[in-house]
């Protein structure tokens, strides 16, 4: 009986340790006074994918033109019937 309890205690301890190892990193970085929130890089400042939509890197107008085409393709009236 005592041995069984011991085994159970070891198993429970192992489970707690294992659970600890599975913890996802959740550290919060405190913002310093005067610091503003980090901002994203603009989408048009990326190199287009080799097999994806094309635009000129850094050229916002060309990115907006191609994304507008993609938006308009959601309308079957434009995509299919015209």
């Amino acid at each position: 009986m005592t041995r069984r309890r011991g085994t159970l205690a070891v198993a429970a301890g192992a489970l707690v340790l294992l659970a600890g190892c599975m913890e996802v990193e959740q550290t919060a970085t405190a913002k310093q006074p005067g610091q503003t929130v980090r901002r994203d890089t603009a989408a048009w400042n990326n190199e287009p994918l080799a097999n994806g939509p094309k635009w000129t890197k850094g050229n916002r107008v060309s990115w907006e033109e191609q994304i507008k085409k993609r938006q308009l393709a959601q309308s079957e009236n434009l995509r299919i019937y015209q």
Partner: protein
Amino acid sequence: MARMKFLCDAERCIECNGCVTACKNENEVPWGVNRRRVVTINDGVVGAEKSISVACMHCSDAPCMAVCPVDCFYRTDDGVVLHDKDLCIGCGYCFYACPFGAPQFPQAGAFGLRGKMDKCTFCAGGPEADKSEAEFKKYGRNRLAEGKLPACAEMCSTKALLGGDGDVISDIYRERVVRRGNKGAEAWGWGSAYGQPPKAGTPAAPGAAPAPAGGKS
């Protein structure tokens, strides 16, 4: 300047949950978190059942941004509301402030503690380097940086869910409503959503889709 928005056509949404699945898959969203969900009212009532796909609406005057005590939200040049998970403390204020229930809180760790807030990013990633592994892990895929629209809208089979610049998608929606051309109780069903057969003696609207045989109208 574009203002990225979602618009869901309740006449077309067939509650297939394709948008939910596309979002989950594209961004590898963890268990218990639904960045997008389909809400149905009058479920099972013939003619009165309506479904709509809901996620973060990327508000122009976002209440989540207003209430965040650590000011972790920011808006991109395209009007997409994003947040920095490194600053988020998971307090849940944004959840109470959001009228759409967009902010989600994963159960972090083995003891079910509330984690950092997670929400729809309009497939625009976050403040980490674009298309980096860190960005994908924290925020999901950055499709805008690949010149694409959000996966949910692009995967929508009936094109009920539209995503893009508010002006462009509202024009698409307006055109649809004009083409439907009927009101009230008739504004329901296949024929209403995809076009009416031309009435005898009147020419068909230019580009109007023929109504499928056996379809409701």
